[in-house]
């Protein structure tokens, strides 16, 4: 087990290092002078060349790519995300504030997704091929095909503009959470419904189940002990991926609904070429992806130990 965790952690470290390097290289090589962009964002006016050079030096951009990269990555390894190159303030508290808006939205989206997908999949699998099943499959396909930004705009148009039931912009009250959570949750529900439906049908068709029925095992016990664990294996995989992609979806939904959070944090940081802030969001996403994947890997092996055996 220790060997397994060590190998997974090693893999995660490689992914995180690669992500950090790739993001830094992309920002470094983006068109335009980063020092000029920072100076413009900082002073909000045209500035002399000396000031730009001073900004370049302060941001650690004057020593070349590797010098700038090592100047950023070294404190990061110790948990220091650095200071904003525009405001000079620590990135970490600002990031925490942004996360305090984004994470509840992602969680609400996940709950909406689960609340829709679980009953829908259970109803659909009552009679495979029946009209309810076909409706569920159609809904899931439509849900997966609609992009979040379009769905968000449609929901705003219907519930905020036409009906006037819900607020569209901002994050002042819990009601402000409803439309963004619904936008996010419908996308999650689409993919979860599909995987739950196919997982349940496949698990119910396991070739050993008739023997359990003939042995006299109660139908409820068969569902709980022999169907559910087999459904869990594929669902956990998709659920983990959904969890990771929820962050990405939440960022987009925040922009559509003008909510504060990681979305606005990231967009303003990119516009100002604020390296430390952009890097902080990318690293946060990468850490979340890698952590969730690591947990799924472990959970997967706990659910189906044959996977670990095969790897060994």
């Amino acid at each position, binding site marked *: 087990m220790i060997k397994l965790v060590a190998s997974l952690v090693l893999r995660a470290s490689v992914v995180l290092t690669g992500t950090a390097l790739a993001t830094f290289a992309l920002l470094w090589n983006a068109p335009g002078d980063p020092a000029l962009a920072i100076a413009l964002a900082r002073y909000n006016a045209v500035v002399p060349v000396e000031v730009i050079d001073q900004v370049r030096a302060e941001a650690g951009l004057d020593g070349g790519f590797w010098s700038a990269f090592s100047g950023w990555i070294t404190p990061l390894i110790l948990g220091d995300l650095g200071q904003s190159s525009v405001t000079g303030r620590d990135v970490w508290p600002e990031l925490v504030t942004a996360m305090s808006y984004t994470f509840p939205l992602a969680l609400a989206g996940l709950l909406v997704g689960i609340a829709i997908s679980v009953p829908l999949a259970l109803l659909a699998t009552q009679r495979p091929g029946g009209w309810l099943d076909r409706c569920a499959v159609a809904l899931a396909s439509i849900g997966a095909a609609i992009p979040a930004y379009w769905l968000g705009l449609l929901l705003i148009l219907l519930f905020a503009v036409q009906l006037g039931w819900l607020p569209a912009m901002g994050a002042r009250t819990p009601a402000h959470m409803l439309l963004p959570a619904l936008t996010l949750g419908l996308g999650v529900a689409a993919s979860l419904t599909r995987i739950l439906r196919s997982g349940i049908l496949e698990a119910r068709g*396991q*070739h*050993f189940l*008739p*023997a*359990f029925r*003939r*042995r*006299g*095992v*109660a139908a409820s*016990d068969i569902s709980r*002990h*022999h169907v559910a*664990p*087999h459904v869990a294996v594929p669902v956990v995989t998709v659920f983990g991926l959904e969890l990771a992609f929820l962050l990405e979806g939440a960022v987009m939904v925040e922009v559509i609904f003008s909510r504060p959070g990681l979305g606005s944090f990231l967009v303003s940081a990119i516009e100002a070429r604020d390296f430390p802030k952009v890097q902080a969001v990318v690293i946060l996403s990468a850490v979340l992806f890698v952590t969730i994947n690591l947990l799924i890997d472990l959970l997967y092996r706990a*659910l*189906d*130990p*044959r996977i670990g*055996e095969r790897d060994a």
Partner: protein
Amino acid sequence: MTITVSGLSASHSGRTILQETDVTIRPRERIGLVGASGSGKSTLGHALIDKLRAQGERSVAHVPQSPDEALDPLRSMAFHWREAERASGLAPDQARRQELFAALRIEGGDLRKRPWGWSRGMQQRFVIAMALIGTPDLLVMDEPTSALDPVVAASTMSLLENYLSDRQTALLLITHDLGLAACRMDRLMVMQTGRIVEDAPTQKVLSAPKTDAARSLCLHRSWLELPC
């Protein structure tokens, strides 16, 4: 008490695969249900089990062809055992388990492991032991040894026969292996296209088969040379 079931039938996609059939099985009887592949042997076995279970008057147990068809790969052997005890309405009893394990020579198997942690032969003997937990009136075995090599298959059948020798349990062995049935069964039921076409003591069927189905099976005498 004799088991009598009448009117067994089955159809699939509008096609009759088991014609109306009556079956009578006496206690301790050893019956071989033989016939070519697709003749309806397993369907008759399943219909018999389902009907007896639905009636709830007689206890019946089932051993499928392969342990893969009887064991959940995600559950431990201990879990399967506890569940089989519950399904038979019995409280956990270690002495009963030890007796069955000893009788079927299930030795050294770690109950905490999943089925794939055991050998195939041990898995199949475990499935047979589970079927015997409640000392059923009838044990239906559907090609129980076809997934095993002939030597392991023969020894498994011998262990089972020894265990059943002082019990009232009747045995219905579904097989296409006439050699196995001829060696160990008192009575043969020969099936063809969804009906029992011949039902007589084993020696009578082997020495004077009356139907084409029985004659066709008896032609393959080479099976009798294998361990059974």
